């Protein structure tokens, strides 16, 4: 069986990593000190680039490349760490924030140094009130130890980190909506371009990175770019925390090399319940299409998930066994997106609710002839014509299960003779 590795998750559940003393005993803040004392920002950027690290927030964009988009001639720039984790099925950032806040902070410091940012922000989901308090305490501990503030370790480098708590809105995970929210506005996505790298927070060049992405900078600095690039598959390098949930016996966060097979991931999480068979896996969060039995031996990485018609996304891996009612499941996710639509784009705003209502009819066995065709038509129509990817996230799951479990949908349609007059 494939092995579970412990890189970011090392010590979680064993030691109280919230305590800066404990974190330091385990080598914490050594890389930060080394970066300031021995490395140039360009060295950190180069290490990150060579490691092949790709964004862990959903899109999988190469992190080093993203940093290089910052205009060279502008000194003012921001790093914003995205801890708004609300993609259905994802719960890794929540864990890192609460269990390893200093690791996250050290990652933010390293990222800031790499792009020469002097004021970094972390946007924490409003529901993570406890996590926010833990992180604020970590910032204060680090400040007292001289790891942030003016002239860190006696160098010329100043860095401030501010934690900002959201107030309930999935869309604020989208980077430009996040920036609006951080500016004290409604969390509505902005039109791109300009991209945040050009005009982001307060109009200045900005990099938005996921919590897990930034946290991986710490082990990459410690063990080298080669160490990271040596694991994984050709274009999906290194390790990833996979949030496995649904119908498995031991749901949880498991850190594995990218390229571990889908079957192995299910086994790692304790397998299915006795006597059950697999119906589907949603491999990349609520926005992703399902994969099925025939995909069990695929390596779980960005390329293979895309080839299977889905995506790896944030690494939320939800397993469904043969007891699943996929009409209800589809209704659940469509309702989620309809509820979380910010309302700027008509297709996303209206289409989502329309589909939700049709699915609600089906859930209650009151579908009318033509409903399934309508679902197909509406979902195809609203996809690809929205401001941000949320509007395009409504279709994939629905479409994949509507094809595969067509009978479950079809039997919810009222027959002609029973239709109300």
């Amino acid at each position, binding site marked *: 069986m494939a092995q579970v590795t412990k890189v970011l998750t090392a010590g979680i559940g064993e030691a109280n990593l919230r305590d800066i003393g404990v974190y330091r005993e385990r080598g914490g803040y050594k890389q930060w000190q080394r970066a300031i004392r021995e490395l140039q920002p360009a060295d950190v950027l180069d290490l990150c680039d060579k490691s092949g690290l790709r964004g862990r927030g959903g899109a999988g964009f190469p992190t080093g490349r993203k940093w290089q988009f910052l205009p060279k*001639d*502008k000194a003012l720039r921001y790093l914003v760490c995205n801890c708004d*984790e*609300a993609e*259905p*099925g994802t*719960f890794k*950032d*929540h864990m890192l924030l609460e269990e390893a806040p200093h690791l996250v902070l050290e990652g933010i410091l390293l990222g800031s140094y790499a792009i020469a940012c002097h004021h970094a922000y972390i946007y924490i*989901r*409003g*529901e*993570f*009130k*406890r996590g926010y308090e833990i992180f604020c305490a970590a910032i204060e501990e680090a400040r007292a130890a001289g790891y942030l503030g003016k002239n860190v370790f006696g160098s010329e480098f100043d860095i401030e980190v*501010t934690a*900002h*708590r*959201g*107030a*309930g*809105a999935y869309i604020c995970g989208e980077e430009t909506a996040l920036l609006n929210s*951080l*500016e*004290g*506005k*409604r*969390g*509505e996505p902005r039109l791109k371009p*300009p991209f945040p790298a*050009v*005009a982001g927070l*307060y*109009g200045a060049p900005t990099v938005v990175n996921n919590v897990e992405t930034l946290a991986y900078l710490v082990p990459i600095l410690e063990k080298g770019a080669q160490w990271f690039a040596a694991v994984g598959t050709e274009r999906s390098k290194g390790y990833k925390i996979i949030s*496995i*949930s*649904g*119908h498995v016996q031991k*749901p*949880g*966060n498991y850190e594995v090399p990218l390229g571990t097979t889908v079957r192995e991931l299910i086994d790692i999480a304790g397998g299915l319940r006795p006597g059950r068979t697999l119906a589907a896996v949603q491999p990349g969060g*609520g926005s992703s299409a399902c994969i099925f039995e025939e995909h069990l031996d695929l390596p779980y990485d960005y390329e293979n998930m895309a080839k299977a018609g889905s995506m790896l996304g944030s690494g*939320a891996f*939800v397993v*469904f066994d043969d007891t*699943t009612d996929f009409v*209800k*499941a589809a209704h*659940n996710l469509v*309702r*989620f997106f309809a*509820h*979380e*639509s*910010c*309302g700027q784009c008509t297709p996303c*705003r*209206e289409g989502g*609710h329309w589909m939700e209502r049709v699915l609600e009819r089906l859930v*209650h066995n009151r579908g009318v002839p033509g409903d399934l065709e309508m679902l197909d038509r509406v979902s195809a129509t609203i996809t690809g014509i929205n401001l941000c990817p949320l509007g395009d996230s409504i279709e994939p799951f629905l479409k994949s299960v509507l094809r595969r479990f067509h009978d479950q949908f079809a039997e919810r349609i009222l027959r002609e003779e029973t239709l109300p007059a």
Partner: protein
Amino acid sequence: MTGSGTSEREQNFPALLERLRPECEQLVARYERKRSALLPICHLFQLHEGFVSKEAMRAAASMLDLTPAEVEGTVSFYTLFFRRPVGKYVLQVCRGLACSINGAEDLMAYFREKLGVGHLQTTADGTFSYEEVECLAACDRATCMQVNLEFVYDLTPQKIDEMLAAMRAGTYATSPMAQTEAPAATWSVPQDDQVATGRKSSGALGQPSPNNAGGVGDESGIIMLDRILAGDVGFYERTSERAVRDSRAVTEVVEAEKNGGNGASH
């Protein structure tokens, strides 16, 4: 609701504001632009008043050089800000997919039966507000919920019974929310049959969509109408003027980018 006379809370507000002002100023100082402090300031007032009151929004507006309407326009976007009084315990049960396939629907039905209210409603005694929320990022510990934003994992009917009893007795581990005003009866949202019989989770018919923001029992339009009926139109003053200014600010940034970063002119 909009009756004559001022409530005790309203009378206490000026003193509260003076007490919180230093903390608000600290919050403002954490950011490079004032307006960024809006969410933190609203969190602070909600902590003390139990909701983000009209007075709090006005105060935030004047501290941040915004109009009250800009503040309310922003506050109403976010589901964790309540713009009217809510129960002492806000029970937010996860209806996300991972919880749902692990029995959340039965537990939500159980909650509705025990509380006698549905999604987005508050009990008549003002103790509980009940809401069914999206994935709480704790799917490995399904089914789960938050009580005044503290997590409770692995729910069972027995756990729910114990929890509700402890809350009623005032012995529950998580402290109640501040409640400076009794939640109004108008919080009730009509439920359809299936909700009443406890078999359906989306209970709030007639909710304004798509942005059903504003949290437990939001009825944005009604809140605004209330203000206008009460002759409180001043709340929306200067709105159009600001709207023009804001969009100009954005265009300036973009224009400045195009012109090779020559600062925006005013």
